[in-house]
C-alpha cells in the first residue's frame, strides 16, 4: 500500500457523504489492479495508477481513478460556492433551501481540505499550481499547499511537504 492512511480516511468520508452522487465517489478510488507486463517479474502489479487523462475531473468521473484527494477538494468547493455559498459562507445572501447534496458536498469539502497531510502522496496536482525552485529543489505551490514531485514506482507523484524556508 503506497498511500498513507489519512487521505484514505478522508476518501472513505467522501464516499459516504457523497452517496447521492455515487459516480463521483467511485471515481475517486484507485484502480484495484492492472495487467502484469512481465512473465519473469511480478512487481508493480498493484493499483498505483491514474487512468484519468482529463484536466477537468468532472468531465469523466466514471473512468477517473486518480488518487488525488486534494484535486477533488477544489471540485467540491466550487460546487459548494455555486450551489450553496450563502448558506455557509454567509456573504452571498439568499441561501434559502436545505439541499442534501449541496450540504454533503460542503461537509466533504471541509473533510477533504484537511487531507493535505504532509507526507501524503498524490498522482495529480490541483489546478493552478506554480513551479517554485527553492534551495535547489523543485516544488509545486498550489494555493497554500506545497508539493515536492518525486518519481515513485516509475510514475510522477507529488508529496505534500511543508513550505520551504
Amino acid at each position: 500500500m503506497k498511500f498513507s492512511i489519512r487521505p484514505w480516511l478522508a476518501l472513505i468520508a467522501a464516499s459516504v457523504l457523497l452517496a447521492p452522487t455515487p459516480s463521483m465517489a467511485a471515481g475517486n478510488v484507485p484502480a484495484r489492479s492492472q495487467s502484469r507486463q512481465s512473465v519473469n517479474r511480478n512487481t508493480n502489479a498493484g493499483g498505483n495508477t491514474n487512468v484519468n487523462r482529463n484536466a477537468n475531473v468532472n468531465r469523466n468521473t466514471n473512468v477517473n481513478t486518480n488518487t488525488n484527494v486534494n484535486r477533488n477538494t477544489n471540485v467540491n468547493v466550487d460546487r459548494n460556492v455555486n450551489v450553496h455559498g450563502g448558506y455557509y459562507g454567509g456573504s452571498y445572501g439568499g441561501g434559502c433551501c436545505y439541499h442534501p447534496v449541496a450540504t454533503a458536498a460542503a461537509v466533504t469539502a471541509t473533510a477533504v481540505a484537511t487531507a493535505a497531510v504532509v507526507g501524503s502522496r498524490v498522482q495529480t496536482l490541483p489546478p493552478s499550481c506554480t513551479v517554485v525552485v527553492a534551495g535547489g529543489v523543485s516544488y509545486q505551490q498550489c494555493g497554500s499547499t506545497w508539493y515536492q514531485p518525486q518519481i515513485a514506482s516509475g510514475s510522477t507523484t507529488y508529496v505534500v511537504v511543508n513550505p520551504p524556508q
Partner: protein
Amino acid sequence: MKHMLRFTGALLLITAGLSTQLPAQEDSVPGAAKVEPGATQALDRMGAYLRTLKAFQVQTRGTSEIVMPDGQKVQLSQTTNLLARMPDKLMADINGDRGSKLYLFDGQTFTLFARDAGYYATAAVPGTLRQLVDILADKYDIEIPLVDLFLWGAPNNTPPKLTSAIDIGPTEVDGVSCEHYAFRQEGLDWQVWIQQGDYPLPRKLVLTTLTDDARPQHTSILTWNLAPSYNEAAFTFTPPPDTHKIDFAPNAQSGKH
C-alpha cells in the same frame, strides 16, 4: 498442480466418508494441464537466442488493462521504442495513454525522464543491464520496459515454474511465420508467438493476470531490428530546457521480496 492434488485428496475423503458424488469441477478435468516438452524447449531456445544478441532495437505497440474497483476494465495503449547494447546500454522511449517517458542507461547512470511533467530523476547504478534490472526493482520499484527480453535465458534468472505449456500451432504475426505457445504459471496465463526459423524472437506477447477476477490482459506486438544504428549519445541524458531534476522515491517494499 498442487491445488488439484489437494482437491482430489479432499474429494476422496469426502467420497469415502459420505458415499456421495460431488459435481465435476473445472480443475479436475483430466489432462487439462500438461507441460509439453516441445513448448518449454521452444521457450529455452528463444531465451538462449536472445542472450546471443549484442545489440537490438525493438519497437512495440501494445495494450494494458486497468481494473476499476467494481470490476470494469479500461484499456490503455502505448508504444515502446527500445534500443539495447549489451552489456550495459539502454534507451527506451514510451509513449501512450500513460504519458511519455524516456529510460536511459549508459552503464553508469540511470535516468527516467517524465516528459509530460518535465521532470527527470537520476540514479548512479554502475553495472550491467542485468544488474540494473534488479537494482531498480529493489531500490525504486521500477521495472524497465520489456524486462523479459533481458531475463529470458539469463543464467542468473530463475523463470517462474510452468504448470502448463502447450504448442498451439503455426500462424503469422505481421506477416512473419511464428509458432504460437500458451503457458500457465502461478497467477498468470501467457502466450508467446515465436518466430520460426533461425531467429527465434518473440513477436507477440499476451499476458492474462489471474490474481484479479476481472483477468486484466496485456498485449504487445514486437518489431525487431537486429542491426540498429546509433551513437553513444543515444544512451546519455541531456536535460531539455525548462525541465527539473527530482528524486526517486525509495521503494516502500524494499527488502520484502
